[in-house]
């Protein structure tokens, strides 16, 4: 039987509010990465966006599918400076939101794809969302930055990076 291969690489729990969380020096020891973020915000408008290897050029694109409890919708954006996984609703100041981000073949020499799930129910508002993102770079991913488009992530926000190995 194959050896279990779901490893925690690093975790960060904010002791004070911060506008971003970065995982750096990611080894090429796994096949895929999984990032789990449980977040609250200090103010309105915290949309979660992702960049790799400090690249803020327009090398990203994305397609989102989301539902807010009333209607389903989809959006697409090209030549972006990041992948935004909260296209519809930003992070709440009171109720934690759950974000699951899978990054496939992160150490390969091909362009990188991520698949994200945003879960933001607030007992009367919020949304659920799926995002597929693309980073057009052949460099291995060695760092991931989770940024907020506005305001900051609140104290207690936790981000954990896992490595999944296929062989």
């Amino acid at each position, binding site marked *: 039987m194959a*050896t*279990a*291969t*779901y*490893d*925690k690489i690093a*975790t960060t729990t904010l002791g004070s509010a911060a506008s971003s969380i970065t995982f750096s020096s990611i080894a090429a020891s796994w096949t895929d990465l999984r990032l*789990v973020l*449980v977040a609250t915000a200090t103010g309105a408008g915290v949309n979660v966006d992702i960049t790799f290897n400090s690249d803020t050029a327009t090398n990203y694109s994305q397609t989102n*599918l*989301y*539902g*807010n*409890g*009333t*209607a*389903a919708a989809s959006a697409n954006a090209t030549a972006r400076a990041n992948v935004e996984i909260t296209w519809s609703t930003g992070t709440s100041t*009171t*109720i*934690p*939101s*759950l974000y*699951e981000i899978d990054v496939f073949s992160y150490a390969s020499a091909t362009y990188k794809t991520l698949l994200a*799930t*945003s*879960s*933001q*129910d*607030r*007992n*009367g508002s*919020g*949304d*659920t*969302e*799926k995002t597929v993102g693309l980073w057009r770079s052949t460099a291995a991913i060695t760092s991931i930055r989770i940024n907020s488009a506005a305001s900051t992530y609140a104290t207690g926000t*936790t981000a*954990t990076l*896992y490595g999944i190995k296929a062989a």
Partner: protein
Amino acid sequence: MASTYTLISSQVLASSASSVTFSAIPATYTDLVVRASARSDFAGNDEIFVIRYNSDSAANYSFRYLQVNGSTAGSGAFSNRTTEWALYTNGNSATSNTFGNLEMYIPNYTSTSSRPYSSFGVGETNASSPAMIAVLAGLYQGTSAISSISFAPGNGTNWLSASSFYLYGISNA
């Protein structure tokens, strides 16, 4: 490096059962994952998972979902409910021998404040009557750490034999 994705418990039904419950869940992990393959005795195609934590029947649950059925997409939501849902799996009118699949992710299950969760369920049956796919965001606002989770069919009476439920723990310690 030790793996952090650990099987806590599993239940593979040898006969029909009205519900499946994982109890005495240890508080030694950070997050929980449930993976299920299920089919109910409901005389229809699409079944839902009705979920309770800690046998809590107060109005501490809410959720909103995005679903597609092969032709149209829609979204719905429920607030202040006495049970949680996860969507979808197969009822007993679905193609024979087909079971829907579910994955749930529950972070910070030992927290005593609001806990979000996600679920993704599918019920493909290779039938002209389209099966359902749904992504769901849920919230549980009970004030005790989650130590048990139960799954009952919302439309039918019983889960059928060979339905399987697996509970995993993930630690970020």
